[in-house]
């Protein structure tokens, strides 16, 4: 099972022609060929969203958005790395929303563009995690934050959907907002609250000597 017996694959990464074993990811292939690569690398496990690449496969004109650590190289593939995901222009503090009756009003103020979604599917098509991003935005606009947030369980905040959105909605931040307000206003576990109360009353002392 040594390298010699494995098929080598030819790919172009950031303009460099590389010959490497086909089981390697695009990042591993660059390293394998001796090229330095520091930026756009992170967890190497598909959860940090740093390794954003654009990919064109042999015989196809389609360009797809993918995660470089999760995409294995294929014969004739062209890859280019994107760097520095840009932050969103929306800002908010959960603390300024006084109670859960006001969430929707605050949402419209923080994300005014969400209402203008043109259902172009750009966000959903670009998502490397297969998230129904557009649907998430639609649910959030209707105030169905819990449902909207559930769609974003696997979101790694790679920002592809944000780049794709012609209305500057920042759909991933809409998704995280929906998740955060759900926790902030609706997670009230009695086992936790009970324990905090016991600690407050000093009933659970620890021997620290």
């Amino acid at each position, binding site marked *: 099972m040594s390298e010699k017996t494995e098929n080598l694959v030819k790919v172009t990464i950031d303009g460099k022609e590389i010959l490497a074993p086909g089981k390697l990811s695009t990042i591993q292939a660059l390293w394998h060929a001796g090229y330095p690569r520091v*930026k756009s690398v992170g967890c190497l496990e598909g959860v*940090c969203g740093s390794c954003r690449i654009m990919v064109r496969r042999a015989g196809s004109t389609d360009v797809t958005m993918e995660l470089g650590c999760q995409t294995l190289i294929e014969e004739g593939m062209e890859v280019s790395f994107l760097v520095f995901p840009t932050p969103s222009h929306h800002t908010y503090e*959960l603390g300024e929303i006084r109670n859960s009756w006001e969430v929707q009003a605050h949402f419209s103020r923080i994300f005014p563009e969400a209402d203008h979604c043109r259902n172009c599917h750009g966000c959903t098509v670009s998502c490397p995690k297969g998230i129904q991003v557009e649907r998430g935005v639609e649910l959030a606009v209707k105030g169905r934050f819990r449902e909207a947030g559930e769609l974003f369980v696997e979101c790694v905040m790679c920002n592809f959907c944000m780049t794709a959105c012609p209305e500057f909605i920042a759909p991933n931040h809409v998704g995280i907002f929906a*998740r955060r307000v759900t*926790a*902030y206003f609706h*997670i009230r576990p009695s*086992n936790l609250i009970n324990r905090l109360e016991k600690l407050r009353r000093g009933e*659970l*002392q620890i021997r620290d000597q």
Partner: protein
Amino acid sequence: MAMQGIPYSEALRNYSVKTFREPAGEVQEPEQLLRSFHPDYYPGTTVTLRVGVNRGDACHHQLAEVLQADARIDEADLAGAAIRETDVLVIGGGGAGCAAALVAARAGARVILTTKLRLGDSNTVMAEGGIQASIEKDDTPQMHLDDTLRAGHYRSDRRLVARMVADGPDVIRWLIQQGMQFDLDKYGDILLRRAGGTSANRVAYYRDYTGLEMMRVLRESVTNSNIEVLDYSPAVELLSNEEGHCGGAVISSLKDYSYTLVKAKAVIVATGGIGRMHINGFPTSNHFGATGDGLVLAYRLGAGLRDLDSFQYHPSGLTWPQHLAGTLITEGVRSAGAYILNGQGERFVDELETRDLVSSAILRECAEGRGVEVGDDIRGVWLDTPGLELRNPGTLAARFPKLIQLGKRSGIDLYHQPLLIYPTLHYQNGGVVIDENGCSSVPRLYCVGEVSGGIHGKNRIMGNSLLEIISFGRRAGAHAAEKSHRRGHKKVSIEHVSNLRRELTLAEMPMEKQGPALFPECAKFENDSDYDGLRRNRKGRP
């Protein structure tokens, strides 16, 4: 060298799915098992430090090499560097750094957070298993303390552990208040599972994405606050004032290839672990930036370190296929009831023993010829996922979506074929000595999270690290902010680097290597011409 194991194809032919397998029974002579097989005890792994506060202490030789390396910069590099000022400078954008920054900023301090790559690229985002907090009615903080001390072989700082376990429930509340979700039962109570080597169900979680959920919420909180974030900006040196107190740091930018001096009234180092140093040649579960930088920075300024010879090897790292070697399979799979089998199909250790014992037992099986051999020096033992699914149908799909993805990428159908595992370098048990506010022995220098030492003793239990980073991150953030009304430093410099060079020369140590490492060797940062601007003065050095 280890004995030849059972060839992969033969072992696979011998494997069959079974509902029952004889348990392995208790580990006989655990101390002996560790001494004979745990990598911390490999002959020749430790050396004695010759330079710095810990001179005379045992230290792993790879770590010693970076602790006693030359600095990356000298005065000439700082000529013309921009100078910034702030109250609190946080170095490292993982869970510990974000928690510290948030608390300090909310207490009114001006905060700059600088991080090596993208904010949130960290070990934190990768955590799967969950976070410990004694919440269940038959559990207590005292039991949490006892379990932590026992698992760490009674080598922890008891006071630190006492603070951490007492903080546990409030840490969970704080996280929920930042907008983090946890898995709940149908009444809305937090679900808890059991970590190996503990006496109660105490690990709260969100699917097998606990770290991802925590990190994206903290990142969102930070970017929506008045904290100034400098990303792609690794710190390369700390700054000291006339009295040797910490006075800020030198930050390098991977965006514009320049250095900036950030003067700060307090510095909180939260740079995480060392997995990418590949201690003892092991593969690792850690993220790309885990190169032990914080240890080097703090040590040079005179901060004391501890347990520099103690590392955690997680029992279930994937070992085949080779390009995924080191990838973590969460302990949750063993908690759920998966067995570990040798090449003969036998269980050989209680799967829920502490991690150091389970890993040592795996290394023993492999060394004594009962492992599975793939060739090219790759060997391991089986993680019996088909058996788990047979006993508890539906478990894999419901609880381990990330594991199923991993099976797909490995080309292995984990419903029918076991995975080959081998210990993977996972965690740095030791680190910078701190007190209950995260203060190191150098005034105005705080160290929190994986970079600090003392909490886990010689072995850490699942879920205690995520608790530690938030507990001590918050403590340090609050303490540093309280002190931020102090006057700023008059003069800061990298004078301590000259002292280091003098000591290295006196001790006749080699000076070729420079630290902190910043990136793993495979990435070839040192040869990357993009960053020549950061190395202008290298060659001219005496």
